[in-house]
């Protein structure tokens, strides 16, 4: 074996920023690690090409099995039988768990997966373990993702016959910056440098922009601006974007997303077929895991079949004396998952609203992701947008192709035929701001702000002679501060003792093209132009694990003693 052996670094270390300083334009590969499937694509000099594994697959299952001492993932591993995935030794759905604390409903919904997800419900990271020789062996979502990334990397290096260092990864819109750091950690563990993390529908938007350019080249399209809605729903997430495309530029007007996906459809169906399934699985014994696995395979299979046929016969022997034998029709499936489909609809409406786009303005509506095969999903998108679904894209390959295009563009590669004269102008998927005005979240960079961005807001003290203020940075949309994602916190100290409301505390937020967020905070007293204390510059996020716990502790310890309020507009 000539290929180099890569190992995954320990998860205990902080992310090493060892950047290669070589100016050689090395093309970054595009990677899509989906909740259920993953793929790699690269710009081959003339077009985007999906790489295949040794079994000639372009799309590989996203899982890692822990057998013996060496874990192996779905890229290299060949399952002898589908049920092997449900022996307790295979860990999957990590994209749903990465960077989440154990109070998160998504983590709770993962407790009936056929491996161990344990929660203490105090805002710390959940305990995740695989069953290996009757021992629960602990692991982390980052470690599982890293094992996976290493396999993808080896696969790409063997085929491209060069070392791979830079990647563009597609990520869900709803990921917080804390979750992004977990993805970066996983990449660092796998020896990869993240060039860009791209919200999935924006990768699709870039591919769309390229296709539109191509049509102009072929004299088939007009050069006018095209507005498209992109609806991307996979196993784990539902992500949307509205893009305005012209001249190869994809301008993201709005993003929307939620941790709602095929996994939720599956769980609702499992509950429908076996109503007390959740209680049954609580013990996580070997028999229960097997039962869970059997039910999962049968249900998944049924859902797939319901995309092409009106009804399906489910017949599964759960091995504990109970047997599910039932005919399920499409209406039943749609009724059981009504809340999911309603959620999808509301996301479309929200995204169009945020983009200030009317349905009549839409040129195209693009539906991609594994769930795009479900008739109800296509129907509801068509129903809201009132136009036929765009046909020019492979629903399972669009995101990874877009990521590969971005990889080539951001690596500085140019194409003689102009196929890479492309650009995505990204927008912030979530608002970023600080806690002020009591326990309120005050956004400084609102959601859907074009990046790179730099915005500021002025605050002041709430107490007389308040010499310190606590800047607590959150990301999200909820008005109550602690319901948002905590990104970090720091204090400004040494403010001269003056009456409340006098110091002007300027909080400035800056996001650069690589999506690095910095918070700058300074204090100015009236009659002075110089800051009263040195300006603080803090790179976010600063929090590590257990951030739910941390916000609560801050609140308990300091109350409102170090609070801020926004400066009211004086008339």
């Amino acid at each position: 074996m000539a290929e180099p052996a890569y190992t995954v670094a320990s998860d205990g270390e902080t992310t090493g920023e060892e950047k290669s300083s070589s100016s050689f334009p090395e093309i970054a590969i595009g990677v899509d690690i989906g909740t259920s499937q993953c793929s790699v694509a690269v710009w081959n000099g003339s077009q985007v090409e999906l790489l295949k594994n040794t079994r000639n697959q372009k799309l590989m299952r996203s899982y890692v099995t822990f057998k013996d001492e060496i874990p192996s993932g779905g890229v290299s591993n060949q399952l002898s039988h589908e049920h092997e995935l449900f022996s307790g030794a295979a860990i999957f759905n990590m994209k749903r768990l990465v960077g989440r604390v154990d109070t998160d409903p998504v983590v709770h919904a993962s407790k009936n997966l056929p491996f161990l997800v344990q929660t203490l419900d105090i805002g710390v990271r959940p305990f995740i373990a695989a069953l290996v020789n009757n021992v629960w062996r602990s692991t982390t979502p980052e470690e599982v993702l890293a094992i996976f990334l290493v396999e993808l990397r080896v696969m790409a290096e063997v085929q491209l016959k060069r070392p791979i260092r830079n990647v563009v990864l597609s990520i869900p819109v709803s990921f917080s910056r804390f979750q992004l750091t977990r993805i970066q950690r996983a990449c660092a563990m796998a020896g990869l440098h993240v060039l860009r993390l791209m919200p999935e529908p924006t990768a699709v938007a870039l591919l769309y922009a390229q296709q539109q350019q191509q049509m102009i080249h072929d004299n088939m399209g007009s050069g006018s601006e095209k507005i498209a809605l992109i609806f991307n729903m996979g196993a784990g997430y539902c992500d949307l974007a509205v893009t305005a495309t012209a001249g190869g530029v994809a301008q993201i007007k709005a993003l929307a997303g939620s941790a709602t996906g095929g996994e939720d459809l599956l769980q609702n169906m499992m509950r429908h077929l076996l109503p007390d399934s959740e209680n049954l699985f609580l013990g996580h014994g070997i028999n229960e895991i097997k039962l869970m696995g059997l039910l999962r395979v049968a249900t998944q299979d049924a859902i797939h079949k319901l995309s092409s046929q009106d009804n399906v016969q489910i017949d599964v022997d759960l091995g504990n004396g109970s047997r599910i034998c039932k005919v399920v029709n499409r209406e039943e499936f749609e009724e059981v998952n009504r809340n999911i489909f309603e959620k999808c609809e509301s996301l479309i409406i929200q995204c169009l609203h945020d983009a200030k786009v009317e349905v009549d303005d839409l040129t195209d509506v693009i539906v991609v992701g594994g769930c795009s095969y479900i008739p109800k999903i296509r129907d509801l998108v068509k129903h809201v947008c009132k136009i036929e679904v765009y046909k020019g894209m492979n629903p399972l390959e669009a995101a990874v192709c877009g990521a590969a295009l971005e990889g080539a563009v951001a690596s500085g590669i140019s194409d003689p035929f102009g196929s890479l004269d492309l650009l995505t102008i990204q927008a912030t998927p979530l608002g970023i701001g600080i806690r002020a005005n009591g326990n309120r979240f005050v956004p400084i960079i609102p959601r859907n702000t074009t990046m790179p961005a730099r915005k500021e807001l002025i605050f002041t003290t709430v107490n007389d002679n308040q010499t310190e203020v606590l800047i607590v940075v959150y990301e999200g949309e909820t008005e109550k501060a602690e319901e948002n994602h905590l990104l970090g916190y720091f204090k400004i100290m040494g403010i001269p003792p003056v009456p409340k409301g006098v110091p002007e505390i300027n909080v400035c937020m800056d996001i650069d093209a690589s999506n690095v967020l910095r918070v700058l905070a300074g204090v100015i007293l009236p009659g002075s132009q110089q800051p009263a204390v040195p300006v603080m510059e803090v790179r976010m996020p600063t929090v590590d694990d257990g951030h739910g716990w941390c916000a609560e502790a801050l609140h308990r310890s300091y109350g409102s003693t170090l609070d801020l309020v926004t400066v009211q507009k004086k008339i």
Partner: protein
Amino acid sequence: MRCGCGLAAIPGTDARFFVPDTSFIRLRRPVDPTRVQFGSLKIKARINEARKEVSFYELLGIPETGTLPEIKQAYKQLARKYHPDVSPPDRVEEYTQRFIRVQEAYETLSDPRRRASYDRDLALGIHLAFSARRRYQYDEELEERSEWKNRWQSQLSELKRRSMNRDARGNMSWGARMRRQRDESSREQ
């Protein structure tokens, strides 16, 4: 004092990180015209200075009569030039600042309400470019949700404009002039 400071590239800075100078704090001064602390001479100086600054139209390279499609097209062309993803690696920081300015010009001119208000200011020579509007960004976001606030805002900016004009003409009460002179001299010491 240049009112676009903080957006101009700072020579000798690391390509990735902005040196934490206090330029973003200095922006504060011209930000709030309701609390003008400058004497009338300074206001005039500022207005003269503003004339030298490029307007949003000049920045986008379109005439003041430019249509929305023209604005959009100009924006996309400039984005292709200045967006840090496509800019030369050694000029990322500079181009990022430029892109942010282009973005602000585009956002202002592509919104009929904001364009109208900008045109009004421009005609009066009050060029509250870039950062000047920044402080109100958040408020503006909120306003978009309620129409009544829009009307209130336009009335407010009209008031502001008038008071600014008055100030510029030196048409202030004796007390106001004295307070301003005192503020100014205390700052200059």
